[in-house]
């Protein structure tokens, strides 16, 4: 089978299984994500949706199956996992900014240590990215001086600094006060319109409806339903999805 690289999926997950001890959390997931696609993963807590995301850059080791990112097989001994990770950015629920580094240093550290850029060049790139996420004046602040929304925007700038091929968002707004959610979603929407490939685990139905190209519902370790947001939300056929949407919308 020969496929041109452009047509090859950015992320290809085949028959993914993941066990924690005896408990099987992921029970066979196949998922293929094209370049530039925005995929939102929904599901009740404990459904395994974050685990899928964490397997994509090997923060979690899969039990069986295969994952390729931009053509690199994550479990091929030839693959430099550090390189693949630098190409697949991750944004965490708890931000995970480096508290001992300034905002600027949080963004430049990957550029200087992984991409081997000069300090001046790295700072130039970082300042542009901070401007993009709306925080040009926070370069010299430290993470503990920022609000949650600002922290998450710095975290997005930090992963953008590596010019990743894809960014994985693991419940990026779940730890935020409600009034701070919008500023983070706005940055994410901007990225989506610029053509960034994004995989987003979230509970933000508005974001899913408005921005996603495809919505996936995971429950009990398998994909229960997937489709474009219009049909997904308006006439869900799967009873579990109906139940889930009913609960989410009601509060």
């Amino acid at each position, binding site marked *: 089978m020969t496929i041109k690289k452009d047509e090859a999926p950015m992320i290809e997950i085949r028959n993914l299984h993941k066990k924690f001890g005896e408990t099987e959390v992921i029970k066979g997931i196949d998922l293929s994500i094209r370049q530039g696609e925005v995929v939102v993963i929904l599901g009740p807590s404990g459904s395994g949706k974050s685990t899928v995301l964490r397997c994509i*850059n090997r*923060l979690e080791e899969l039990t069986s199956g295969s994952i390729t990112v931009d053509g690199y097989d994550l479990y091929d001994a030839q693959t430099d996992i*550090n*390189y693949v*990770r*630098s*190409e*697949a*950015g*991750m944004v*965490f629920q*708890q931000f*995970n*900014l*480096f*508290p*001992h580094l300034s905002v600027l240093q949080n963004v430049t*550290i*990957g550029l200087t*240590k*992984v991409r081997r850029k000069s300090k001046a060049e790295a700072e130039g790139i970082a300042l542009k990215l901070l401007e993009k996420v709306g925080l040009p004046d926070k370069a010299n602040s*430290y993470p*503990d001086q920022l609000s949650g929304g600002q922290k998450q925007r710095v*975290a997005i700038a*930090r*992963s953008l*600094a*590596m010019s990743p091929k894809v960014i994985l968002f693991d419940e990026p707004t779940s730890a935020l006060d409600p009034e701070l959610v919008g500023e983070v979603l706005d940055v994410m929407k901007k990225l989506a319109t610029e053509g960034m490939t994004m995989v987003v685990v979230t509970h933000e139905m508005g974001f899913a409806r408005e921005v996603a190209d495809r919505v996936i519902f995971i429950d009990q370790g398998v994909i229960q339903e997937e489709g474009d947001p219009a049909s997904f939300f308006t006439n869900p056929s799967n009873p579990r999805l109906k139940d889930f949407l009913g609960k989410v919308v009601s509060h």
Partner: protein
Amino acid sequence: MAFQFKSDVMWETLPLLTHGIELTIYLTVAGLLFGFIIGVTSGLARISRNPVLRSVSLVYIEIIRGTPMVVQALFLYFGVPLAAGVRISPITAGVITIAVNSGAYIAEIVRGAIESIDPGQAEAGRSIGLTRMQTMIHIIWPQAFKRMIPPLGNQFIISLKDTSLLTVIGVAELTRQGQEIVAVNFRSFEVYLTIACVYLCMTLSIAKVLRMYERKLSSRSSR
């Protein structure tokens, strides 16, 4: 004959202790320097992915923590040379004892501080492509080191006081020198009181310096 406290004996004793004080400081500084290197190495070995390194360091730590330092000093000074056929000076044996002994405790301090850092920090480091080593050097260690300072200060103070146990192998440090002075003038009350004051000055200085250092570190990182 009633006991009479003579404060002038204390002032007369102090200059006679100079060599002992110097030696105590030397044993502490040299011992802790090597102890820190041993401690960081075995602390990192304790959390390494390599099971052999993990068990070697665990065995070392358990043996040292489970035996008295006096016995360790006697074994090193009298026992090991007998088996190995080389004599070492009491001072060398003393430095090694302090180093090996404090190293085990420092290893646990290092391990504890590193493990106390939120795993999300390492994940964030790895997710931008830093290697395990880079993540340790640039992300985990700077944060963990700050948390190590108070327990390290504690260990420095303990090791300083433990140098007095080296009298058993005849190291002429502060306590030993005091014993020799008492053997001549029989003023045990004044002499040991003087020695206690000298130890107290040294331990308080360590505490003070570390507090200043800690304050300097925290002001640099978060403002």
